[in-house]
């Protein structure tokens, strides 16, 4: 038993010794390896790339600071200058956009979202009948399906942003109409898109249970019939 333990210990120390040997060989990289020349163009490219992605990735200051409505403080001075001067410098923005290196890292920043939202839509048909369209509601899906359908959540997160992405609403409405259309004699004519939302309870005022979701119809879309008929391959007139 003792012998085997000793053997094991010896084995371990041998492994560690080899590991030390290996890491020692790393830190003392051979002069031949480090001395290999790199083209000055490569050095210039790497320097430009590093500067570009750093400038491009730095956060923007808050909107009031950027619009000179509020006096900047602390790092705001630098970030405002970076946003207005460096980030706007065309070689940098062009490089990032054209090559695909554009990036912005704001995961749950500056503060995480505090509104939980999902959506559905009511589709009204030519004869006045109505049907509900259920957009993927990730909370209700089994775990494998959540994994597959995360893009739908992301897309609706954008659609739900009234201030920036309202121009996505028409194609959202048209796509719902297309999905819900199955009879050329009774096509969808109107789509009412509803967001269901709750404000996450404040961390210092926790209710016994979550409040119910509040529905709010934020967009009424009159279906583009010519587009619908064309995409469905239908012909105008009674079928």
């Amino acid at each position, binding site marked *: 038993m003792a012998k085997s333990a000793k053997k094991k210990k010896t084995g371990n120390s041998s492994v560690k010794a*080899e590991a030390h040997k*290996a*890491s020692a060989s790393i830190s003392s990289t051979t002069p031949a390896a480090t001395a290999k020349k790199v083209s000055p163009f490569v050095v210039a490219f790497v320097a430009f790339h590093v500067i570009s992605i750093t400038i491009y990735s730095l956060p923007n200051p808050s909107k009031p600071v950027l619009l000179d409505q509020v006096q900047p403080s602390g790092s705001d001075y630098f970030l405002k200058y970076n946003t207005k001067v460096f980030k706007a410098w*065309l070689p940098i923005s062009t490089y990032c956009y054209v090559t695909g290196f554009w990036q912005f890292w*704001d995961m749950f*920043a500056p503060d995480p979202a505090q509104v939980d939202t999902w959506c559905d839509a009511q589709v009204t048909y030519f004869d006045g009948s109505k049907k509900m369209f259920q957009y993927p509601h990730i909370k209700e899906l089994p775990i494998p399906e959540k994994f597959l359908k995360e*893009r739908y959540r992301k897309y609706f997160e954008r659609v739900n942003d009234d201030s920036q992405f309202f121009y*996505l609403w*028409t194609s959202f409405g048209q796509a719902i109409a297309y999905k819900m259309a199955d009879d050329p004699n009774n096509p969808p004519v109107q789509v009412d898109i509803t967001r269901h939302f709750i404000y996450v309870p404040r961390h210092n005022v926790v209710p016994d249970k979550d409040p119910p979701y509040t529905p709010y119809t934020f967009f009424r879309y009159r279906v583009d019939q010519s587009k619908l008929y064309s995409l469905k391959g239908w012909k105008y007139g009674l079928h």
Partner: protein
Amino acid sequence: MDSIRSLYNYWFKWGSPVTIGAFRAIMGGLTFINFLVIWPFLSDWVSEKGYLPSWQAATFLSKDVALNADGSVHIPRIDIIYGISDYRVLQVFYLVMVIAALMTCLGLFTRASSIVLALCVVSFHTRDSAILHGGDTVIRICSIYMAIAPSGAAFSLDRYFAVRAGRAPLIPPDVSLWPQRLIAYNCAIVYFTTTWAKWFGGLWKSGAATWYPARLHEFDRFPVPSFLNHFPMVKVMTWGTLLTEFALGTLVWFKPLRKWVLGAGILMHGYIEYSMNIPLFAYLMVTMYITYYEGEEVTAWWDRLRARYMKKPLPDAA
């Protein structure tokens, strides 16, 4: 002067391609899985019948970058499917992208397949920006890095066939490491800038930030013990996240702390992966961590692992 020289040596020295090869194999595999996941719903995201028809996608990101302030000169973005609305063509494009991701993962015709992959990913992201999350950005930038790096020099079928045919030595020759350094730097930038952005948020400073994502039910995945979502654990996790992300953007370059900082990063992403539905993001970020290690270190680690668990002798002992 010495510090400039050592900085230059760090960025531009030559070394083992094992790290960049392993990175390519894993990142290529994750990219392949990512695009397989989207495939069943492709019609929703690229066809004229879906949520993002070509005209709509074009408005999300402006297609051109104005070189002159007056807009007189435009440089187009890389977008090989710009203006294409025929779904059959887009399906072929998508198939090419998926095959290129698989070939990049396997290291088959690596240079060509990784360039095709990068072109396709950038084009697809330009077209479909409205559905992208952070993991997609990681995939895009890493696909470009893989295309410019000698990423097929190790862990690849290209090399396997070359060694078998006697066209390549058994130990892969050294390669220039600057592409690997760029990946590591970009990884640090992700954490550094997100920490800075969070510093503007009152909830992060007050220690209450992680209270909220845990209650956004659209992100729900596996249940976690309730004490983790209540104070004082919320404060521990909020400030722990800030500290970990800051360390991943700064202290990770300090070699004695590297493994501890990266270990904390793996723990943080592991918890997010378990509790929140943000597909592949944790795996993608952690894959970037490997680029902080030299190829020789990865090889030594692998040899130690084999010696310990597979009863194989270390190379020098054999």
